[in-house]
């Protein structure tokens, strides 16, 4: 039987950084995925690494730490994943929103985060913002990454270090004990692992279910529309601050789909427009009505986008946790099974810090970072 110190299940951005961090601790690591590389949520993401969309608190702390770790990654391993600290520009379109945005900028500044509030002159940053822009907040250090390229880059690094990736092999059975986990793959191979890290996003409950265990993570569907390359320059991540559109149309009623504008150019010149949020089970079909709704939001803040054609739309499933914080740590009842999920729409932003936290859990027994606020047992 093959023995490894740690078996990582899932090769998306979370599994990639977890495997990298475990390998950096000197552990022998194997990565297993039931699909090809990063076949799930990472494949249908936009790669946001943002502090600007978060209020002071745990998520902002994690995001700052993770953004530093992303910089460290690019310095150490090179940048083959279009990691780009291009900044984020948050747009207020009413006096109310401008007040709220100004307060948020002040809160971030008090924490030492580089950002500023502009009541004029934003066209130097983003020339295509629409005429109803009242003010903007600018976070110069927020970043973007191409998620698939990041997973490929990490896979190359790890394979050069002798880490085995096994693709198109699912988990048939997990047998956790006090000192390890016996894993049976669906091809029949058995692997003895000191720890198993489940980096399986929205599919984590399905893997735990046969053991009578669970984590309360649910799929929260999102859409992205891709616009053709054209003459509309989008320099940074542009986001709507107040999601006034949500407040005007969907907030105070039973409508399930929430949309909020976020716009960014890719290295190849196409423009990604997001985003939507809804609980729709595991359905990943693209709903054109939702795509139109999110495009309408985006055109409200950057009207010139209306002259570009839509190339395609895609949907993915964010792992939503009920209290909005990721779920990272040993599964109660199976302490050698470590979960890392529940990042919702911040998985790329938080991937680097998640790798560190899982590695500290496996290698140092540090299972309760941040006063246990990430620990799976908090839901029991």
């Amino acid at each position: 039987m093959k023995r490894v110190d740690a078996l990582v299940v899932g090769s998306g951005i979370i599994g990639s950084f977890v495997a990298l961090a475990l390998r950096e601790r000197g552990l022998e690591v194997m990565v297993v995925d039931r699909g090809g590389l990063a076949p799930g949520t990472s494949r249908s993401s936009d790669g946001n690494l943002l502090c600007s969309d978060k209020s002071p608190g745990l998520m902002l702390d994690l995001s700052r730490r993770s953004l530093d770790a992303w910089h460290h990654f690019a310095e150490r391993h090179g940048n083959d994943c279009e990691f780009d600290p291009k900044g984020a520009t948050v747009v207020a379109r009413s006096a109310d929103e401008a007040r709220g945005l100004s307060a948020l900028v002040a809160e971030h500044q008090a924490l030492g985060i580089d950002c500023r509030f502009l009541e004029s002159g934003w066209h130097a940053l983003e020339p295509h913002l629409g005429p109803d822009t009242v003010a903007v907040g600018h976070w110069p250090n927020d970043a973007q990454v191409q998620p698939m390229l990041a997973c490929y880059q990490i896979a190359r690094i790890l394979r050069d270090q002798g880490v085995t990736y096994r693709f198109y092999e699912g988990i048939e059975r997990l047998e956790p004990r006090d000192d390890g986990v016996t894993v049976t793959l669906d091809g029949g191979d058995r692997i003895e692992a000191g720890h198993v890290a489940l980096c399986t996003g929205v599919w984590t409950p399905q893997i735990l279910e046969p053991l009578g265990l669970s984590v309360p993570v649910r799929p929260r569907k999102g859409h992205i529309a891709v616009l053709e390359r054209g003459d509309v320059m989008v320099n940074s991540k542009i986001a709507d601050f107040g999601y006034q559109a949500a407040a005007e149309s969907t907030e105070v009623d039973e409508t399930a789909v929430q949309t909020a504008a976020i716009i960014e150019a890719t290295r190849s010149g196409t423009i990604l427009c997001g985003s939507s949020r809804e609980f729709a089970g595991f359905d990943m079909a693209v709903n054109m009505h939702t795509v139109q709704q999110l495009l309408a939001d985006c055109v409200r803040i950057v009207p010139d986008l209306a002259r570009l054609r839509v190339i395609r739309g895609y949907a993915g499933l964010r792992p939503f946790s009920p209290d909005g914080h990721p779920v990272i740590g040993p599964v109660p009842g199976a302490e050698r099974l470590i979960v890392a999920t529940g990042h919702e729409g911040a998985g790329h932003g938080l991937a680097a810090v998640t790798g560190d936290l899982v590695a500290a859990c496996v290698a140092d027994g540090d299972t309760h970072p941040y006063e246990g606020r990430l620990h799976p047992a908090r839901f029991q």
Partner: protein
Amino acid sequence: MTGQGFRYRGTAAEESVRVTLDGRAVDIPRGVSVLGALLLQADGDRQPDWFCAIGQCQRCRVRVNGDELIACQTYLAPGDRIETPESWSG
């Protein structure tokens, strides 16, 4: 974010659920998020703290039946007990 008063625009207004908001019984249209309920119940002195309404900013954290949750991402069930941060004792 504060601002204009919010009103219910859904289609199931005739159906409501009774919940407790900081110890006070209130009736909320069925299907409304906790943030929706807080906005419908807001007055000049008491406004929920929020801005994104999509679960990102996490400014609208409340407790529902003792568990800390994001108000804009949580839907109410009859009998739910909502506590806003101003009412938390610890």
